[in-house]
């Protein structure tokens, strides 16, 4: 090098000029939607195939080594279906075989940003599973006998359409129900049912998250939190939910970023979970005491005056509270502060230490860390404690109180209401809500239930409260997932109670064994859905699509039905529901057909292409422009990239001023709620949230008056954050109208001598609910659920070593499992993971071989007995890996031995169990289960007696506060208490 200072080949340009030239070249390339720097990033730990090479991505075939054999693939995006996070996937579709070779992360997805957990890539196992259901099946023989006949889709559709049409014509709308497991597209199934005039939507939410939702809903009218982890200073997590559910991958990667910046992570988890191992502070509280800890932190913030006084003054409904509960005092903020301090003075660190078993000094240290967070306090509680305890909903209500005291609501690094960070595009057709009320899902006893009382369905049917003519389970396995599964089996095998059971499922499960029709539905690369979830302060939509359909369309083929490209005759739901609805009302006489007609081709059936083309064109702001910049239609853009970010940095929506044009004929209440006669502006985003009712003059609530300005506020009755819930107060629960502490049903005061708490609300992060069983990689990773026992308990109980069998006795039976003696669990508590213990009945030809034990099930003297005949082992199939199965264990199905525990307010099943644990008896065998379903009935009755039914407390003659969220909202007439019940209603709730 002669002159090291000369810049070569640049015609005298300076380095800055050269840099600008590169910047310009990069901008030009990126404006075309292409990638300028296509190599891997060394600083962002990311390496993805550049999107302009997605049509022909070349990799060397590893199995051909040392030969260099190129494999060409089309990369087609879709959305993972293996938990609710909806992470982006890229399917590698082999260009020669047109089959999916593997699935990896989609870098264009704003939520997951190209990363996945183990469950995403394992989708390929589900697609190629040798045991999967490929064709429609119809039961032959008795229900549950395990004999099936392959039928055509036409036969199944015609038979089901005829049943449903008959029920609708005969006014038996409430005999039709669709019960959902893994959510598909937001609102799709609800709209199908609405178009039929049926209030038959049932969900799994009351065995999942409704306890957590309830606490958030009563505060802000929106039932999910959206913690802004990436920008937080302190991250406060109740339980290991993060790692096992929502939203593991999108949240974990942002928590990792926050930790790298120095954020502190506090985890409350009785068990040493993976999440707890990453915490700066791991608190292992006695189960059910989490709300006491939250309240002690609240008290610390109040006593030390470390709360955001201005935020509390502006946004809490303290004035409404004082007027309602302290009419004798001047309703000033200073008065409220004094009363607030008095109200929470009882929740000292000493109190919380006594309840939780955690040292006072540790609690005080954690409270200081929280206090230092200011508004950068991100918190999350979903299942676990909120889903496990009587009054568990107060865990999330007290948790949000910490955020509300810190002013950490919708601030950078704070906790957002999820509706700010979620976008549900308005679809092409929106049918009205039904004119009937489904009492099997929304019974009078639970007027404040957050979601359907789904897990009580067998008991309601046994009570004679109704029957089901046609019952769909959709990617749902109630026999296995719910508590008291054998009561489910009893009603599913009784054709008087359930006339027809249709299992829409991609894989065999314990409930499908008791179906009349088993109809194969697609996995994530085999179906359409849109999704949007709160994972950071922004809004995005993801697109799930049948990737082989998209791949063939890239090659110029035309696909009109997803079954043309899916394995066997596997279908997708959207086309299924459209076709079924069309056949229910072929001539339009029932008023259903118009919701399934094309707009482009009037009179013809709507296609999924038109459905999504319309949605992406009309209801996703910015997408048409972004697509046009690349010369694509919005649908083509979504088929190519699989996701689109709509907005970033929503910020505190509640602080936004209401525009003048929305303020017409305004009325303002004493506490500042503002109503308007102006119609609601059309919004393309139909994200669910609370819907406060209009005023007496029919004006809609539009905002709230704060310091003389009309601001948007929250979708609560008061328009503010509801520290005091007028809803709880007026619907029979005034003693719980404030954030507080309810002693759990497993509180030490409620345990009998010798009882322990069984913690059953966790799972391993590599597990999918029912559908792990057909993912061989996931099966190999985890296939056992031993009972965690602390060494001190093991000594006391006489359990000598890990692997010894123990008998765990619940109120209605027992299960026999292996012990795992570990210091990772609190003394006095045992724990057992759910998502294990899959089974199939001996003699049945169907079922999963990789993760289902073969069992016998018999009833003896009123009690059910399940015994394991065989575990799993190697077997011959189309997949040579099934010969390599080296494990035999599949865990134990503990849920069968749990009675139902419906929380009288939230309706949430309270999962924790008071149990006795002892060494197995002679003759006990691993996996043995005994259940007395009559005793299960007794427990159900006992918990039912704790309720305060609507007809005794409703303040307005309705069944349920109309503003609370509900998937389907029956018409006002249907919401009124039935006459038989209304006669017992009392205006004052006494």
């Amino acid at each position, binding site marked *: 090098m002669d002159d090291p200072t000369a810049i070569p080949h640049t015609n005298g340009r300076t380095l800055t000029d050269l840099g600008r030239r590169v910047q310009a*070249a990069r901008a030009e390339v990126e404006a075309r939607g292409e990638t300028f720097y296509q190599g891997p990033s060394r600083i962002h730990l990311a390496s993805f195939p550049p999107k302009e090479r997605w049509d022909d991505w070349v990799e060397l075939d590893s199995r051909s080594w040392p030969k260099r054999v190129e494999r060409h693939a089309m990369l087609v995006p879709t959305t993972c279906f293996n938990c609710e996070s909806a992470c982006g996937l890229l399917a590698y579709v082999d260009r020669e075989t047109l089959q999916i070779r593997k699935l990896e992360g989609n870098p264009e997805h704003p939520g997951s940003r190209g990363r996945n957990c183990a469950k995403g890539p394992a989708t390929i196992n589900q697609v190629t599973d040798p045991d999967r259901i490929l064709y429609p099946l119809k039961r032959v023989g008795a229900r549950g006998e395990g004999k099936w006949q392959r039928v055509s889709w036409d036969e199944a559709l015609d038979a089901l359409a005829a049943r449903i049409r008959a029920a609708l014509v005969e006014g038996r709308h409430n005999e039709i129900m669709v019960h959902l497991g893994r959510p598909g597209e937001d609102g799709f199934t609800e709209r199908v049912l609405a178009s039929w005039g049926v209030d038959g939507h049932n969900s799994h939410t009351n065995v999942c998250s409704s306890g957590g939702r309830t606490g958030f809903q009563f505060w802000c009218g929106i039932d999910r939190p959206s913690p802004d982890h990436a920008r937080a200073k302190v991250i406060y997590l109740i339980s290991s939910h993060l790692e096992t559910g929502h939203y593991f991958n999108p949240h974990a990667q942002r928590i990792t970023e926050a930790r790298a910046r120095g954020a502190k992570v506090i985890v409350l988890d009785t068990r040493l979970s993976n999440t707890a191992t990453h915490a700066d502070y791991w608190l292992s509280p006695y189960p059910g005491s989490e709300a006491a800890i939250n309240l002690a932190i609240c008290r610390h913030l109040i006593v030390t005056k470390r709360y955001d006084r201005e935020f509390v003054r502006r946004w809490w409904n303290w004035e409404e509270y004082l007027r309602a509960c302290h009419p004798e005092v001047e309703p000033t903020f200073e008065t409220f502060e004094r009363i607030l301090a008095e109200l929470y003075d009882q929740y000292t660190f000493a109190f919380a230490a006594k309840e939780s078993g955690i040292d006072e000094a540790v609690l005080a240290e954690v409270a200081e860390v929280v206090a230092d967070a200011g508004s950068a306090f991100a918190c999350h509680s979903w299942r676990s404690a909120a889903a496990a305890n009587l009054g568990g909903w107060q865990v999330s209500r007290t948790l949000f109180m910490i955020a509300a005291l810190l002013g950490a609501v919708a601030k950078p690094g704070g906790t957002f209401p999820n509706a700010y960070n979620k976008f549900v595009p308005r679809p092409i057709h929106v049918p009205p809500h039904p004119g009937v009320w489904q009492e099997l899902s929304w019974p009078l006893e639970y007027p404040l239930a957050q979601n359907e009382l789904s897990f009580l369905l067998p008991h309601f049917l046994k009570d004679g409260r109704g029957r089901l003519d046609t019952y769909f389970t959709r990617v749902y396995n109630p026999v296995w997932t719910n508590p008291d599964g054998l009561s489910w089996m009893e009603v599913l095998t009784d054709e008087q109670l359930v006339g027809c059971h249709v299992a829409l499922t991609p894989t065999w499960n314990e409930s499908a064994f008791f179906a009349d029709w088993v109809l194969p539905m697609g996995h994530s690369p085999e179906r359409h859905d849109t999704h949007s979830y709160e994972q950071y302060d922004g809004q995005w939509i993801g697109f799930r699509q049948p990737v082989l359909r998209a791949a063939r369309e890239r090659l110029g083929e035309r696909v009109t039905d997803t079954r043309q490209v899916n394995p066997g005759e596997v279908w997708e739901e959207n086309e299924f529901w459209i076709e079924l609805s069309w056949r229910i009302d072929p001539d339009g006489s029932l008023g259903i057909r118009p919701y399934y007609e094309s707009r482009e081709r009037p009179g013809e059936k709507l296609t999924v292409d038109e459905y999504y083309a319309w949605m992406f064109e009309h209801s996703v702001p910015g997408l048409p422009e972004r697509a046009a910049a690349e010369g694509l239609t919005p649908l083509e853009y979504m088929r190519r990239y699989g996701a689109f970010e709509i907005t970033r940095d929503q910020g505190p929506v509640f602080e936004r001023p209401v525009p003048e044009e929305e303020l017409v004929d305004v009325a303002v209440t004493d506490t500042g709620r503002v109503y308007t006669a102006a119609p609601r502006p059309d919004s393309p985003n139909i994200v669910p949230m609370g819907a406060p009712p209009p005023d007496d003059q029919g004006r809609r609530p539009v905002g709230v008056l704060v310091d003389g300005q009309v601001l948007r506020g929250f979708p609560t009755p008061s328009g503010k954050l509801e520290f005091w819930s007028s809803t709880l107060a007026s619907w029979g629960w005034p003693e719980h109208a404030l954030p507080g502490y309810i002693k759990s049903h497993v509180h030490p005061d409620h345990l009998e001598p010798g009882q322990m708490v069984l913690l059953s609300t966790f799972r391993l992060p590599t597990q999918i609910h029912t559908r792990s069983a057909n993912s061989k990689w996931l099966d190999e990773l985890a296939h056992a659920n031993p009972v965690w026992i602390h060494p001190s308990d093991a000594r006391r109980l006489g359990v000598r070593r890990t692997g010894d069998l123990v008998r765990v006795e619940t109120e209605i039976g027992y299960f026999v499992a292996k012990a795992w003696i570990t210091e990772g669990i609190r003394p006095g508590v045992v724990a057992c993971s759910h998502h294990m213990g899959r089974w199939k009945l001996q003699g049945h030809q169907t079922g999963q071989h990789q993760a289902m034990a073969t069992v016998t099930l018999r009833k003896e003297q009123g009690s059910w007995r399940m015994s394991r005949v065989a575990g799993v082992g190697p077997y011959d199939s189309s997949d040579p890996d099934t010969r390599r199965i080296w494990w035999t264990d599949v865990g134990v199905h503990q849920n069968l031995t749990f009675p139902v525990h419906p929380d009288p307010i939230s309706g949430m099943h309270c999962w924790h169990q008071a149990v006795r644990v002892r060494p197995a008896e002679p003759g006990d065998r691993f996996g043995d289960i005994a259940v007395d379903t009559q005793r299960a009935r007794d427990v159900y009755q006992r918990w039912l007696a704790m309720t305060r039914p609507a007809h005794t407390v409703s303040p307005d003659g309705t069944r349920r506060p109309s503003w609370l969220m509900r998937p389907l909202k029956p018409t006002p007439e249907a919401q009124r208490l039935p006459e038989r019940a209304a006669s017992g209603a009392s205006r004052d709730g006494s």
Partner: protein
Amino acid sequence: MNATGPSALPARAADAAGADAVAARAEVAEALAQLLATPGPGHGRVAEALGLPGEPDPAAHTEVTVLACHPYASVHLGPEGMRGGEAADRVAGFWRALGGTPGPDADHLGALLELAAELARREAQAAEPDRGAAWRRARAALLFEHLAPWLVPWTLEVAELADPWFDAYCRLLLAWYREELAELAPDLPAGPDRLPVALAAAPPGLAPNDGQRLLDHLVAPVRCGLVLTRASLARAAKDLGVGLRLGERRFLLRTLLEQEPVGTWAWLATEASRWEEAHRAWADQGLPDQGSARFWSERADRARQVFEELGRLAEDQVSRSGSAATIRS
């Protein structure tokens, strides 16, 4: 809003122009970093934007970045001339101090150039002056502590391969490096004696009594002040008229010394002298990295002395016994 004073607007404009220049140089750094990755379809476009002569020859790229001129800080600064160890940990610690997660290739030149680009962008985009100043200090630390100790020696060893594309690449890289040094000079440690930690704490240079470990030390650049690539050893064999055996570099050196000890030591002394001159020429420019350049110059000069001494010993042995003692690793 009223202007705060007559000088406010020009000052901001100057700041903006400075930020623009920083961002532009950051783009050059990122582009240079990208070109060190395995060549792919996008390389041509990036090279063209940088004004480089077409795309690199894939074989030459592999030779430079994989086989011969390992672009890792640890290879150049570590006591054995190998990847990893304390030299790599030092770079990883820097990443962690910035709040990042060091990847397995954190001390790769491409990673450090990307990091330099990222830090420059953060400085240019910082909303608050204090934050901007902090990022600027981080840039200065990266340049002085983690690039200056070995970037120039790496370009010298690449020059050994005489590939036209990489010659142009290295000139551009050095141009970027010089401008960064100039711009960040106020934030860099002043004085010709100031050394980066990696060099201040470097293992000792060569000694004639290194004995069996001498061959190890000859392939550790930070000890001997020169980089003996396969290409340079092939040149040695050719110059000396001896056979070049196949094997790793220590084996090659041993076989050269076994075949022609006096000539090999002489060849090494000449090579060390050449490297000493190159380092000194860089040091004489008086740039803020002159401490590093002097360090390398002194190490190469020391190596020359050792090689000459060992050459004399070898010559004596040959004259006494007709054959020289061999060095075995």
